[in-house]
């Protein structure tokens, strides 16, 4: 008789009925929203600084945009379940740091970081990290690149011009469609036959759009507000600004 075949006898009186279910829910939603917009040679990444649990505001100063290293242009914004979001940011920080020491002090390219982030997210395919990510940086030619991800990693290798995620993304996305990609806009006098051509916007215009998007989202979404963290990445490096949003 093999060891494994021998029956084990549970304690007498052990109930056969289905076990009581107090299912532990490993996820929660900590609210907030993030935006990324790529200019020609600069990148804007922004997020509000409110951190919520249900109707409670945990903190008014919790940042969602993370700089992945001090000497590269890589920036990651994450939103969703706060613990997973921060874990992804930390995993990416470590990867970028390790890469540097494994590759003769050469920094990870933004394309490589993008592919690596996919690997991280898809690696957790069967117990997903519940966070939406936007990754950005400048490539070797100094051009801005922006990638956005769903919780299990799918992303576009070509990159994007703009992305929004989080609680108020449904409010923000159509606004960006209109103001960044000029959707539903036509050249005057052409009787709606010629679409307005998409062009890169100057940095001050992009900042204005981002601030407008967040003040609007703050007005109409309870999980968005308190503060706006606005990060600019350009040839001049990393610049971070903080603005006030409504606290109600």
């Amino acid at each position, binding site marked *: 008789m093999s060891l494994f075949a021998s029956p084990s006898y549970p304690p007498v009186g052990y109930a*056969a009925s289905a076990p009581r279910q107090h299912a532990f829910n490993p996820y929660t939603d900590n609210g907030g929203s993030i935006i990324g917009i790529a200019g020609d040679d600069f990148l804007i990444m922004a997020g509000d600084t409110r951190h919520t649990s249900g109707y409670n505001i945990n903190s008014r100063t919790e940042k969602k945009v993370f700089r992945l290293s001090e000497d590269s242009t890589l920036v990651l914004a994450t939103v969703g379940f706060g613990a997973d979001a921060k874990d992804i940011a930390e995993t990416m920080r470590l990867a970028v740091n390790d890469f540097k020491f494994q590759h003769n002090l050469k920094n990870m390219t933004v394309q490589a970081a993008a592919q690596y982030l996919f690997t991280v997210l898809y690696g957790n395919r069967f117990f997903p990290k519940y966070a939406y990510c936007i990754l950005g940086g400048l490539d070797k030619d100094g051009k801005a690149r922006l990638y956005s991800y769903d919780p299990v990693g799918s992303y576009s290798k070509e990159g994007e011009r703009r992305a929004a995620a989080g609680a108020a993304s449904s409010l923000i996305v159509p606004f960006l469609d209109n103001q960044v990609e000029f959707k539903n806009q036509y050249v005057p006098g052409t009787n709606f036959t010629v679409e307005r051509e998409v062009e890169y916007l100057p940095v001050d215009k992009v900042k204005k759009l981002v601030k407008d998007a967040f003040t609007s989202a703050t007005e109409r979404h309870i999980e968005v507000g308190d503060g706006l963290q606005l990060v600019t990445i350009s040839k001049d490096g990393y610049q971070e600004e903080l603005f006030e949003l409504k606290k109600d």
Partner: protein
Amino acid sequence: MNHLPEAWGRPRDDVYGAYDHSHLRPSMPNQHTQEPIVTGTSVVALKYNGGVVIAADNLASYGSLARFSNMERLKQVGTHTVVGASGDISDMQYLFDTALEDLVIKEEYQNDGHHLRAKHVYSYLSRVMYHRRNKFDPLWNVLLVAGWDDGKPFLASTDLLGTTFSAPALASGFGASLAVPLLRRVCPDEESVAKISRERAIEAVEECMKVLFYRDARSTNKYTMAIVSGEDNKVDIEWKKDVELQKQSWKFAEEIRGYGAQIV
């Protein structure tokens, strides 16, 4: 004939067929701790100019039964930090008496003059909490870490999911709804920390403990308070143990309109 002891005194397989155990064993995965048993209620903490005040009452409840009335829920970790725990008491005791003790001892082995500061303790605790939630075996607590770090007061929170955040005023459990609004009146943002004196902070936290005792049915009137201060590069932790709530009065209730016995 099966001679193995497991089969003694049981129906013979060769006569009755192999015994069907399926009704004894549910075809379910292992169940870990999935509910708190003995619990502690809110922990309240507030930063001030030069330190942090943290407090938690001394009650450990078993459901609605006030089971242990001398359960301290604050622990000093190293020289710079106090951790407060609400939620499951046995999980708290694992963290306080096993995990954090081991952490501090291991850190001192190096004998390199480096001591754990609040941020390090917090980082460790939040990773433990997150790791356990990843294993689907959470430590059912909300922890507040108060301390002195890098010349500034430190205060942050982590919970059973590994969620982390920090703010100048924090409270767990019932306190998140009742105490935090009161504390934010004193200290709305990080900038205003500089304007709050030690006395004002203690007074505000004492008031919160009183309000919580009035309204939280799982609270008691005896609590522990720790004040971590870092004046002129020396960290000092003052403990106030077995403090009884002072100047209790339900007089204010007469002013309340909108519910209760009174008519308009």
